[in-house]
C-alpha cells in the first residue's frame, strides 16, 4: 500500500511499497553482480599489455590508412557489382521462399497446427544464424564464389521476411476474409482476394527494408570467400595494405548510404 500512516498520524505517500522497493534493489544488485562477473571473465581473457598499446595502434592504423590509395578504386567496380547482385538476387530468392512460409506460419492462414510449428521452426532457425555463418557453410559445400553468397543471403532473409510478414498476416481485418468466404470462394481465392491485398503494402515495405540490410551484409560475405567486395577487403587486410582498406571503406559507406536512402524513399512511397 503506497499510502501509509506515520507515527504522528499524518498519511505519507511513496511510489512503491517497502516490499517492491526491496525487490527492486535486489534486482539491481543481481544485475550489477552479473555485469561484474561477466566483466571479470572478459578481463581474465584479455592481454592488458595490448590494450595499453591501443591508442598508439589506433593512431598508427589511421596514419597508414591516410591518404587512401584512390587509384585502387577502379579495381573495385567488378566486386561492387557482385556485391549488389548478391544482395538483390539473394533478397529475391529469399522473398520467394519466405512468402509461402509466412502464410503457413500465420495463425489465421495456416492449414494445420503441425504445419505452423514447422514453419515457425524454419523462421527461427533462419533468424538465429547470421548470414556469415550460412556463407561459411555454403562455401565449404558449394565452393567459394557469388553463388554461395546469394544463397546465404537468401537463407538468412527467409526468417526476417517470414517473421514480419506472418505478423502482418495475423493482423489483417477478418471481415473481408469472411465476406470473400461467404461468396463461395475456394481457399486459394480467399487468400488472393481477402488476405493478399491487405498485406501487400507491408510485404513490399519489408522486402525493400531487407534488401537494404542485405546490401550491408553482402559487403562482408567475401571475408569467408562468398564473393563480393569482402574478398578485396580480406586480401587488402592480409597484405596490410591499409590505404586500400580505407578506399574500400569509403566505397561501402557510400553504397550503404545510397541503398538506405533508396529503401527509405520506396517505403515512404508505399505507405
Amino acid at each position, binding site marked *: 500500500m503506497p499510502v501509509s500512516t506515520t507515527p504522528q498520524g499524518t498519511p505519507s505517500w511513496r511510489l512503491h511499497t517497502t516490499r517492491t522497493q526491496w525487490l527492486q534493489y535486489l534486482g539491481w544488485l543481481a544485475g550489477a553482480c*552479473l*555485469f561484474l*562477473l*561477466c*566483466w571479470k*571473465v*572478459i*578481463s581474465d*581473457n*584479455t*592481454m592488458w599489455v*595490448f*590494450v595499453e*598499446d*591501443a591508442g598508439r*595502434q*589506433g593512431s598508427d*592504423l589511421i596514419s597508414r590508412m591516410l591518404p587512401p590509395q584512390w587509384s585502387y578504386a577502379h579495381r573495385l567496380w567488378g566486386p561492387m*557489382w*557482385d556485391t*549488389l*547482385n548478391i544482395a*538483390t*538476387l539473394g533478397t529475391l530468392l529469399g522473398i520467394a521462399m519466405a512468402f509461402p512460409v509466412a502464410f503457413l506460419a500465420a495463425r489465421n492462414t495456416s492449414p494445420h497446427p503441425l504445419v505452423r510449428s514447422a514453419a515457425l521452426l524454419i523462421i*527461427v*532457425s533462419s*533468424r*538465429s*544464424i*547470421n548470414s*556469415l*555463418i550460412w556463407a*561459411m*557453410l555454403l562455401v*565449404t*559445400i*558449394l*565452393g567459394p*564464389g*557469388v*553463388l554461395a553468397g*546469394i544463397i546465404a543471403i537468401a537463407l538468412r532473409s527467409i526468417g526476417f521476411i517470414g517473421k514480419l510478414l506472418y505478423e502482418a498476416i495475423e493482423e489483417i481485418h477478418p471481415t473481408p476474409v469472411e465476406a470473400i468466404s461467404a461468396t463461395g470462394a475456394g481457399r486459394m481465392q480467399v487468400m488472393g482476394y481477402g488476405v493478399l491485398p491487405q498485406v501487400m503494402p507491408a510485404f513490399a515495405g519489408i522486402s525493400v527494408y531487407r534488401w537494404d540490410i542485405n546490401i*550491408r*551484409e553482402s*559487403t*562482408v560475405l567475401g*571475408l*569467408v570467400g562468398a564473393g563480393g567486395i569482402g574478398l578485396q*577487403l580480406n586480401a587488402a*587486410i592480409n597484405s596490410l595494405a591499409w590505404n586500400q582498406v580505407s578506399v574500400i*571503406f569509403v566505397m*561501402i*559507406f557510400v553504397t*550503404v*548510404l545510397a541503398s538506405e536512402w533508396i529503401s527509405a524513399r520506396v517505403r515512404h512511397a508505399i505507405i
Partner: protein
Amino acid sequence: MSRQAKAQAGQWRRLPLIENPRLRWGLVLGLAVYLVLALASVEVNWTRVAEGAGRGLNFLAAFTQPDFVSRRGDIINGILESLTMTVTSTVIGVALSIPVGLGAARNIAPWPIYYLCRGIITVSRTFQEIIIAILFVVMFGFGPLAGMITLAFATIGFMAKLLAEDIEDLDWRQVEAVRATGANWWQTMNHAVQPQVMPRLIGLSMYRLDINFRESAVIGIVGAGGIGATLNTSISRYEYDTSAAILLIIIAIVLLCEYSSSHIRRWTQ
C-alpha cells in the same frame, strides 16, 4: 472508348499499377535487363557444386546426430565467452546510447551536438559488426575485449537512432505541462521524457541483447572472441556434427532470449 463504356460491354481489365505505359514498360524492361546481366555474371563451377552436394547432405544429416561431446571444452568456453560479451556490451552500449540518442534528437539538441551524434550513429550503422571487429582486434589484440567493444559500438548506433526517433515524436504537451510547474531540465527529463520513452527502451534493449548474442557468434571469425572461432574451425575441418551442435545451441539460446524478452516486455508495460 472509355473504361466505363467498355465495362458495360463486358470488357474490363484491372487498372495497371503504374498509369504511364511508357514508364511501366520501361521499368519492366530495365528489370529484365538487370536480371539477365546479374545472372550472367554469376559464375558457377558446376563440378564443384556436384562434388559439394554430398557434403551438403552430410551437413543436414549431422543435425540428426549433433556431437556435443568431442569438443565439449571449446564449445563451453566459446558459449560462455559469447554470453559474457553479450551482457557487458549490451549494458555498456545501452548506457552510452542514451546520451548519444538525446544528442541526436532534433527537438532537444543544439545543432553541433546533433550533427556529431548523427555522425556516430551513421558510421556505427553503416559498417557491419565484423568490419568494426577487425579494426578493434588490430587495436586491442585478439580476445573478447575487442569483441565486446565492437558490439557495444554497434549497440550505440542501433539504440541511439531508435531512441532519438522516439524522443522526436514524443508527446510534447506532457513536457510542457511538467515544464510549466517550474521543473528544471533534469526534472523535465525525469518526469516527462523518461516515462514516455522507458517502456520502448527496455523492449529495444532486450531485442538488442538478442542481436548481440547472434553477432557474438560470428565476430570470433576474425579473432574477437566468442563461439565463432570454434564454429569456424569445425566448419573448415568439415566436422559438421560439431557445427550442428553449436548451431543448435545458438538457436536454443536465441529462442530462450526471445521468450524471456517477450515476458519482460509484457511485464514492463
